[in-house]
Every structure is written in C-alpha cells, then in structure tokens.
C-alpha cells in the first residue's frame, strides 16, 4: 500500500469535510500515516553497497548497467562505503578469509540495513560448499533478508529479489522494527569471526572447547589401546 492511495478524499465520521475540499484534505492519524510514508521513502531509495565477491557480482553489475538499469527501482546509488548503504548484496562465494571483513562491513552499516544473499554460494555454499576455505552460507554469520537462487542469478532474478525486498520493507512498521527496540538480538553487532587454524566463530567458543576436549580424550584413548 502506498502513502498516497490512503490519502485523497478520505472521510472520517467525526470530521465533516466540505465537498469542495474533499480532494485536497487527508484525514488520518499519525500511526496510520507514518508507516506508509516511512516505508515508501525507504523502499524507493535503497542504496546498495558496492561490494562484489565473485561471479555473481558480474551479473549484479550487469543489472545496474545499460540494459537492466536498476535506477528504475530507486537503487542506482551504489555506495562504496558501508556507512552510506542500506543494503548489502552478498554477491558471490563467501570464503573463510573474507568473512571477517564481511561481518565487519555489516556491523558498520547503519540501520535500517538489509542483507541479500545473491546466488547459490552466498545462500548455502553453492558448487564450492565442500571446499575447505568456503563458508556454507552467509546466514551462518549475519541475518539474511532475501535469498536469490541461481548460479549466477540472471539480472531478472536479482531484480525480482530486490522487488521482494521492497515488499518486505512495505510490511514493516516503525513500531516493531528491530532497530528501534531495546535488546532485540537481530539489531545487535555480530561478533567478528577470527582466523585461527580454521575460521573461529566467537559465539561457538564453548562448543570448540568441548569438542577439543573430546578429541583429545579420543586420541589419548586410541594411543592407550595401541600401547
């Protein structure tokens, strides 16, 4: 629903609007007005971050270029800095070496912020899932709003994903969005993973220690039984 359609000619039982003014007066209350206006302005000026990871980025560039022209959706302003962007299109394979940077970029984006996983790799590892340096889906680290399937998704598919994002924005309400609520886990900073012998997700330290102890005991056991 767009803001304008709820406006012109609206009536209310308590307030009588003279006929000659009916087309110019909108009677509503602030709660009803705020959301549509808030969402309408955000959905039509989503600024994605210039952020290409792999092959999918090529299709992302094509989407923004001559033939497909993303500007039609109010999204042509690609920003090179996370501080000015609303949308992170994770366009390609996320590797373990790269994921700390991606999480840091995500943390640096001001809210409201959205993440789109473009392509099979960003959504779940894709063709490279079994690789030792590949993260099996960016949603293991940061929350994803829209997944776009494909390898690579065609520009049409990407645009479809962006429209899906606009629809998602339309349904949000200023009263419930996570970034205006205290203590909402989705609005918090994500701990930046670090590179050890393998990628370490700091939220998993406990499991890592537990598993390490288990593995140690197992190796000791096998050594004993061998002896």
């Amino acid at each position: 629903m767009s803001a304008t359609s709820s406006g012109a000619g609206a009536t209310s039982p308590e307030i009588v609007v003279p006929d000659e003014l009916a087309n110019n007066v909108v009677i509503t209350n602030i709660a009803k007005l705020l959301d549509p206006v808030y969402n309408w302005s955000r959905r039509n000026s989503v600024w994605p971050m210039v952020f290409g990871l792999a092959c999918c980025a090529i299709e992302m560039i094509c989407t923004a270029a001559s033939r497909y022209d993303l500007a039609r959706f109010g999204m042509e302003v690609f920003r090179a800095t996370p501080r000015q962007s609303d949308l992170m299109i994770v366009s390609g394979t996320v590797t373990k070496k790269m994921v700390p940077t991606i999480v840091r970029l995500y943390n640096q984006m001001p809210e409201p912020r959205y993440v789109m996983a473009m392509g099979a790799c960003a959504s779940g590892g894709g063709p490279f899932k079994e690789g030792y340096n590949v993260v099996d889906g960016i949603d293991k680290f940061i929350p994803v709003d829209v997944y776009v399937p494909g390898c690579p998704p065609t520009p049409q598919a990407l645009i479809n994903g962006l429209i899906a994002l606009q629809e998602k924005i339309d349904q949000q309400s200023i009263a419930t969005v996570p970034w205006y609520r205290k203590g909402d886990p989705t609005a918090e900073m994500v701990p930046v993973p670090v590179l050890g012998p393998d990628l370490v997700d700091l939220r998993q330290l406990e499991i890592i220690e537990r598993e390490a102890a288990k593995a140690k005991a197992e190796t000791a056991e096998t050594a004993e039984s061998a002896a």
Partner: protein
Amino acid sequence: MSEKILEAPDTVQNPVEQATTELKQRFPESLSDETRPGYEGLIVSPDKLREVATTLRDELGFNYLSSVTGVDLIDDNKMEVVYHIYSIEKGGGPIVLKAQVDRDNPVVPSLVPVWPGADFQEREAWDLLGIRFDGHPDLRRILTWDGFHGHPLRKDWKEPFYEEDHKPFGSRWPGGGVRRAEELNPYGKNVQYPPGWVPTGDEYEVETDLYTGLTIKKDETIDLKTEQVTVNIGPQHPSTHGVFRMVVTLDGETIVALKPVMGYLHRNHEKIGERNTFIQNIPYTDRLDYICSMSNNLGYVLAVEKLLGSEVPERAEWLRILNVELTRICNHLWALGFLLNDLGALQTPMLYFYIERELILDFFEALSGSRMMCNYMRFGGVAYDLPDDVRGQPTLQFLDELVNERLPRALEQGNELMTGNEIVQARSIGVGYLSPEDAIAYSTAGPVLRASGIPYDVRRAEPYSYYEHLDFDVAVRYNGDIYDRYLIRLDEMYQSLRIIRQVLPYLKETEGAPIISGKPQYALRVPKGGEAYARVENPKGELGFYVTAKPKGSNPERYHVRAPSFINLTALEKMTVGHKVADLVAILGSIDIVLGEVDR
C-alpha cells in the same frame, strides 16, 4: 641450394628435442628421463635445478617459465615440482623439468633468482602442498592465511565436509539420499580444528609477517620531515576488481613498496577438482575466469582430450573457435570499460560497451542455456549445436550482423571517443611501464606481455584447434604502458572479428554435421593414465591445465590451473613502484585480473 632443402628435414630438429639433447650432454649426472608411462620430461636432481634452469634460459633460449606445479606423489612418498618452460623465440612445446624430493621434508631450491615470475607460484606450492623453496625471498602462505592448519592439497589432508576421496559419493549415487553436510559436523559449519586445540587469543595475530619490511620510516635528513605510511587497499574496495587487497607503502603519494594479498576468493578449485570426475570439472572451469567461461572450458577439455585421445569433428572445432573469440571480445569490452572507469571516464564507456556485450551474452544464452556459465565444451566436441534463432533472428544472420555491423560500429565509437582523449592519454601514457625483459622474466602473459613488445600468442606459438588454418595477426605494441595495454585490447578485438568472419562460412557449410565424436558419455575413464598439459590463449593470457590420472582412472589425480591473472600480478609491484597511488588503480585495471582465477 636445392640440396640443402632436401637435406633439411633430417637436420632440423624440433627445438625441444634439440635442447633436451644439449642439456643431457651438459648435465649427464643430474638429469634423467621420465620413466613412468604416459609422463614426459626430465627429472632433475634438486641441487642442480637452478643451474639447469639458468642454462636453459641463457644458452638454449628457453626463457619463459610458464608454470610451476606442485604434485603430491603419496604412493612413492615423494613431492614433485613440475616446471613448464617455453621458448619465446622458437615457439612450440615446453621443456618439462621435474624435481622430486622426500615427502617428509620437501625442500627444493627456489627459481625466483632465475625467473622472478616463479614467486607467487612457489608460494602457492608451499601454501597448498607444504613444499619449501630454499632461497625464496618471501615464502609466506598466499591463498590461505598464516596459521592455517595443514597443507590442503596433500592427498591425505581432509576438509571438514570430507565424504570420500572421489565422486560420485556412495551416499548419493547410486541409490543414496542426500544428507546435509552441516548435520554431521559438530559446529554445524564448514570448519574443523586440530584435536586438543583451544582458542587462547594468540592465534589471531595472523598478519604480523605481512607488514615486516613495510613499517613506518621517518626521513629527517632533509628540511621537510616526511614519513612513510603503510596503507591497505582492499579487500573491499570499489576499484580492486573484486576481493583483492594490496598493502602499499607510500611516501607522500608515491608508492615505495607494494605487496598483493590474495586468497579472499580462494574456492579450492583444485581440491574439489581432484575429487570430481573428469566431466564434473567442466562447470567448475566456468567459474575460474567467470567472464570467459567458454575459453576456460576449452583449455580444460583440450588437456583431458590428450589423456583420452579423443578426436574432435570439424564442426565442433569451428563452433569452439567462434565461441572462444566471441568470449575474447566480451572480456575485452568488459576490461576496457573498467579500465576507462578506473582512468576517470566514470561509467559512460562502460555502459556503451555493455550494450554490445549483452548481445553476445544473448547468443551464449540461446546456445548453451546460460549467459555466463556456459558449460559448453565436452570431451570430443561441444554440447549443443547452434540454436535456430537468437533474439528472433536466424542465428547465422544474427551473428553476421553482430560481427559485421554492430561490433565494429561499437569499437569504432569507443575508439573515437576514448583513444584520443586527452585525459586518458595523460593518465596512461608512460605509466605502469613494463620492459620486454621484465615481461618475460615475470612470466606475464597475454595482452600484458604483448603490450611490452613480445609477439607471443599461444594460438600461433603452439596452435591448437584450427587456429593454424586461420588468418589473423598477433597484436603487439611496444611501449609497455597502460595506454598500450588499452590499445592492444582494441587490436585484439578487431583480430577476433576477423577470425569470426572466416569461421562463419564454415559453420554454414558444415550445417548438420556431427558436433561431438562418439556418444556423449558421463562415466569417462582414461585408458592409459599419465599426464597432460594443455594451454590456450585466454583473453587474459595463457591459461594452462595440468592433469594427471591413474590408468583407468575416472578422476584427476592432480589437477592444476596455470592462471594468467594470478601470474600477471607478480609484475604488479614492478609496474607500480615510483608511481602515484592514484595510478595504482589504473595499472591494476590494465592488467585485467579476475579474482575467480587469481585465487581459484
């Protein structure tokens, strides 16, 4: 006179044989022939490697080290390093040197003093296979990070989602179901840690080595006090063409030192490739240099065809050349768009060029079903014949219009707008110079090599497919700067158009002829085993595939890619030192890298 001509066939030896004989005479003790069936080359004892290499380079004319491949010979408990060395002047095949060392303590002398182009390739072999190169100036991990556990390309190293050594996995086929790999992993992710490892926090200092030699230096000897600073550019930066990172030391705005850092897109192409069956690797090659999937396919397919001994029907060869040359145009349009973008012509030339590129992609989509990831070549031919129509036009008519009207017009337009442009010239002439000697020494390939005045093109030097029957010139420019690397790409597009014009009549002539030899097969086995190396002239340079297989094997034992973008980057520091930091972006653009191939 006539006698001489008659005599000629006996005396003129193939340059490789000639050099091999000569080498063996010089180093009788330290060289021996390869004895494994299906393998070729010379086994060199490691202590003489550098001497042999120097002789090859200085006296026998084999001056171009193309590729360095580490191989894990786990059955013999050995590590092997394979060197493919070519002659720029004579062309033709390679001299293959192999150094074998003990697997538990693999140390090979570094060839960086002989060919600086070995630098990154040796680091890669150290990183992925744990082969140490004695005398290497900066032997650090390159694709993974310092502190990574193990050397992943060793045959006994297993990744977290390991299932079986070779595909197809029994759990999936025949009869199997699909389980999500995450469910079997205690962390629910693609990670594993060495037994007993407990995070303490000290492990995370992974980059201390990187900055040594790049520390802040103060210069107080002159009146004006200056200070050098080290800056990181990338991995998230709009003009690094992907997730590439450079650590540069600057004196003011002048670059004093530069270290490229890569691996941010290291997708384990080779490890996955060694688990895959032969045919499963074709779609993976699409994703190497993802702008040129067709020509990557061709390189891989040629290598495996050598192992399989397949024949390719005529129509398939013409189709291959058509697609590979269209890919070249596609790539150069892309590369020039971005190069001009980097030079300050923000987006306009790019948008103009991409209109035409989209047309080529339309053709690819109609032909293969995908715009970018064509997965089109097969062993012994190609997957599909030409479609009936493209964008509502009969295919041949569409192609005819494309190569005779649209593309030449677009190139002309780009040429007129940009080539004489004052800003473009001011920013690119004389910037990023690479001398011909350095271009060879640093193992650069493709437009970078040819823009430095070396007319070396694999399509002419060691022709594959039907290139010897085609009439085209090897584009060459002599100034070795950004401007020449820009011009040479324009030249190459004209040459590609010329080639396609010659191919189109053959496509008409052979209509209906077979496009693949034999029946399409999925479970291929190589009859004899052995090794094969094939190289093609990719738009970015020489792309090589080294594949070995066991007799009756259905999977590659070792699968290595000589990636031109990766090796061309070795010369980046050479080209940039002394220039301003703003030129760095343009120089990088003129090399034309793609990270899928750099990091694999």
